[in-house]
């Protein structure tokens, strides 16, 4: 889901989708417009041209009818046929031999060339028959006289009747749908019928009249006046009543050409054959004809192909244009992560080149700005630390010096020297030594000196013990971190000469240095202990550094990696736990090379 939104949201998607939709829209509208227009034109022109072909069928059927009419007349007026069909008595054998030949000759003369093998049966009332073909009659005479075509002919002897029949009078017509054309021959004077001519045509015989009209999408029907299909290329319809849907559509309409509109889009051609008393219909399926005219799959294939090519082109060009932008986006992500070295190569379109130049320039700017900021911060912090280190309380020095004076007065020489040594060492380490980091060993020494001075001044009711793991000794820590807590314990945990111990534990736990300063003094409530961290110290103490200063420094130096906790229980004591990253002294030497340099400079002043 998110991916899909990415595609549609991206610049690429915004170009691709409208182009795709546009192409589809153009293809569809143009195709349909062209198809619709040409369909109209086609239906009209094709229908009109087929109408001409159709008229030819009509003419040929009429010509055929005329030929048949001529033949009927020829038979009727042939003396040979008359003699053969007329006489009731047996003819002389020789006369008959000649008569038979003459009938054949008369009929041959009357037949047009396309009637060569036509099935002509002439049936006389005197039980004589003449069959033009080398085959046998498969019905009895009575049955023939009873058949519908003969009866029609007898009822209406003036015209030729076209009838469809399943099976004819001869062997070759057996089981076939044939057209039987019947005509009665009669004496002009009396009107008495003496013979019937029956012409049998197969569907194949008829087909030559309309074959050139037939295609995959046009068909032909010839029906008699009752709507019985005499012949058609649709063999299933032959012999039945024509009940096609288009029949009902055109049945009560005037005209020769119709275009049905009931969803099938047929052009129906209609002609009435007056002489034959028949109708002929030509049906053109315009949909199918158009289907043949237009190669729809090809049309669609071309549309799809062109669309695909255009889309691939769009795809290619946009992705090429977008490539530098995508790269830029990637680089910007890295900048976010703090890597300012990711410059853009200047290439691609002019806009993109401008963008790259500007971006690179901006990147340079940001980098120099941040470097500057870092330097300023560094200097500011160093200055702050210096300032803190300078906060050795002058009162403490006066008071300590006053204590030493009293010791000199008391004459305790040894003790005095000890006191002065400790004091000198303390001052050197705190004031003279500008290093921010000292080893644990030095810190312990400082604390020892501080404790010694305090015990000299106030008595040794509070004892201080160090428990430092050997491996901690070389670790580095910021100086003057522990002193404020020890001082705090001295002056607040043991009021009014109370005796007690302060234990200082230092150990390495994993990557960290853990220090705890635990006293067994009066303690306090936990909420007060938390406040204690933020309180300022009194003037007479060694340094002005409050416990809150310690916490600030640690967070300045280490960030979240250092922490200070105080836990206290009333009358039980207070424990201050400090955790800070353990740094070995060798390592720190490199780190603080710069600061060493500044200290030397200061010494020189």
């Amino acid at each position, binding site marked *: 889901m998110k*991916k*899909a939104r990415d*595609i549609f949201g*991206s610049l*690429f998607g915004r170009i*691709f989708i409208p182009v*795709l939709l546009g192409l589809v829209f153009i293809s569809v509208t143009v195709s349909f417009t062209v198809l619709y227009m040409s369909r109209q034109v086609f239906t009209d022109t094709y229908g009109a041209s087929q109408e001409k072909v159709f008229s030819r069928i009509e003419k040929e059927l009429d010509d055929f009818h005329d030929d048949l009419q001529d033949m009927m007349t020829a038979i009727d007026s042939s003396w040979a046929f008359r003699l053969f069909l007329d006489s009731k008595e047996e003819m002389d*054998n*020789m006369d*008959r*031999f*000649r008569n*038979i*030949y*003459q*009938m*054949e*000759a008369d009929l041959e003369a009357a037949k047009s060339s396309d009637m*060569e*093998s036509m*099935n002509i049966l002439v049936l006389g009332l005197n039980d004589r*028959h*003449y*069959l*033009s*073909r*080398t*085959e*046998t*009659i498969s019905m009895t005479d009575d049955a023939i006289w009873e058949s519908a075509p003969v009866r029609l002919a007898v009822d209406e002897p003036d015209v030729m009747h076209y009838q469809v029949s399943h099976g004819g009078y*001869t*062997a*070759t017509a*057996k089981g076939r749908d044939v057209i039987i054309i019947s005509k009665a021959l009669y004496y002009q004077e009396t009107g008495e019928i003496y013979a019937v001519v029956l012409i049998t045509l197969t569907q*194949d015989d008829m087909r030559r009249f309309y074959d050139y009209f*037939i*295609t*995959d*999408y046009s*068909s032909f029907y010839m029906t008699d006046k009752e709507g019985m299909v005499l012949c058609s*290329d*649709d063999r299933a319809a032959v012999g039945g009543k024509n009940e096609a849907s288009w029949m009902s559509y055109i049945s009560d309409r005037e005209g020769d050409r119709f275009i049905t509109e009931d969803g099938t889009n047929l052009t129906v051609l209609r002609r009435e054959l007056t002489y034959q008393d028949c109708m002929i219909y030509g049906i053109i399926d315009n*949909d*199918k004809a158009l*289907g043949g005219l237009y190669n*729809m*799959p090809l049309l*669609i*294939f071309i*549309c*799809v192909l062109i*669309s*695909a090519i255009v*889309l*691939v082109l769009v*795809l290619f060009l946009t*992705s090429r244009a977008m490539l530098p932008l995508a790269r830029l986006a990637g680089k910007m992500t890295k900048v976010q992560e703090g890597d300012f070295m990711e410059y853009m190569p200047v290439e691609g379109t002019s806009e993109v080149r401008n963008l790259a130049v500007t971006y690179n320039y901006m990147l340079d700017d940001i980098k120099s700005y941040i470097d500057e900021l870092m330097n300023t911060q560094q200097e500011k912090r160093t200055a702050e630390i210096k300032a803190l280190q300078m906060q050795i309380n002058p009162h403490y020095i006066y008071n300590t010096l006053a204590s030493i004076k009293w010791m000199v007065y008391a004459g305790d020489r040894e003790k005095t020297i000890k006191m002065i040594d400790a004091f000198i060492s303390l001052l050197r380490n705190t004031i003279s030594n500008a290093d921010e980091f000292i080893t644990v060993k030095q810190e312990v020494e400082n604390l020892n000196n501080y404790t010694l001075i305090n015990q000299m001044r106030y008595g040794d009711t509070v004892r201080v013990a160090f428990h430092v793991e050997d491996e901690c000794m070389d670790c580095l820590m910021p100086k003057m971190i522990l002193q404020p807590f020890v001082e705090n314990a001295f002056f607040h945990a043991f009021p009014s000469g109370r005796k007690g111990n302060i234990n200082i534990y230092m150990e390495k736990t994993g990557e960290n240095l853990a220090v705890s300063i635990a006293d067994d003094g009066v303690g306090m409530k936990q909420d007060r202990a938390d406040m204690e961290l933020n309180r300022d110290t009194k003037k007479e103490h060694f340094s002005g550094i409050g416990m809150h200063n310690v916490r600030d420094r640690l967070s300045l130096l280490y960030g979240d990696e250092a922490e200070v906790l105080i836990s206290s229980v009333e009358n039980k004591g207070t424990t201050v736990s400090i955790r800070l990253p353990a740094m070995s002294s060798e390592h720190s030497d490199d780190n603080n090379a710069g600061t060493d340099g500044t200290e030397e400079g200061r010494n020189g002043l």
Partner: protein
Amino acid sequence: MRRLPTVFLILILGVFMVSCTGQSEGATGDGEISTGRDDKNIVVWTWNETFNVKAAKLAADKYKTSHPDADIVVETMEREEIMTEVKNMLSTGVYDRLPDIVMIEDYDAQDVLTHYQDEFVDLTDSIDMDKFADYKTKLCTMDGKMYGIPFDSGTAALFYRTDILEEAGYSSPALIDMTWEEFEEMSRTVHEKTGKYMLTLDPTDMPVARIIMQSCGRWYVGSDGYTADIADNESLKRSLDVYRKLIKSDGAKSVNGWNDFISAFQNGDVAGIITGCWIISDIKAVPEQSGLWRISNIPVFADMEECVPASNVGGSSWYVMKNSAHSKAAKDFAVEMFAHDDELMDTFIEEIGLIPAVKDPTIYNNYEAKDPFFQNQKVTKLLSELADEIPAVNYGRRTYEIEDILEEEFQNVIESGDYNECLKKVEVKAAAVSK
């Protein structure tokens, strides 16, 4: 990664469109109006319902038992119609309604092969030419290639009704090895005594003239097949004489066309038939006449030494069309059934009275079968033996055209009997058409 969905989109679009058009195509395909003949069927065109058509149907039925997929349609046509239609289709090159197998009468074979040799399937390598009688294979052959499968022999014989002849005072032995003079005499007597005729003669079709000519080893054309041999053709002149005498003396009945010819003997109006043995199926079509018929050899002219009592009339062969819809399947069917299946031939002998046009008919089980219809004569054996004696002639290509001319001219001399004059005229016209 970004291209992938696009490619899919295009693919899906393409597949969708193609499938759409595919569907619409299929829809229009279903409604297509079929033109021409039905698909799948092997179409056979032949004539004569009791003989050739029946044979083709028997073959089709047998073939379907071993080839259930085969679909064979036998269409009854008229002989002349087949020739006209096939020639029309071949000359226009319109093959969509062309049948796959046609039967062609031997008289027409050379004509058709000369004009349309390439339209027929060459069967030379598919069938054993030596199996069939030489005079038949010659008719089916063009340029040394065999195109037809010989079917029936047209061995001519005299078929006669013993009951009618007995009524006229003739017994069976009298009809064997007759002369034409004896036959004319007999015809007259039969008509006088019984009112029936010994023969039918058709002014529009003269097979008896052809039978007589071939029995003397002559034809309308010479042995080259195209030089008209009419004016000096003694056998033809004598055959016209036979016609004239038989008609004048009421010995033969004048009939009109095939239907009259068949119904004449089927109705019992005539006591005899001289024609090819393929008529047996039509004779047998009237079961009431069973046992009343016998078969004998044809008459000869006593004074003509070359004349033998054996001849041929009609006879046909099967041809496979090369450019029809199912030519290959049709060839398999025709070759397997009509050229190789001896069992089927036995069936034909029994069912339709076929006399196979083969060199050695003794291979068939029914060769010596007695036929109760013909008073237990061994019909096949009898006719096959006659066939061996048939003089070979070259029919050429214009048999029916020349005969049309002869019929016309014959009308003019039937009264006078001036055959020389008649035949001279015929020869001039025949020479014109046979070139």
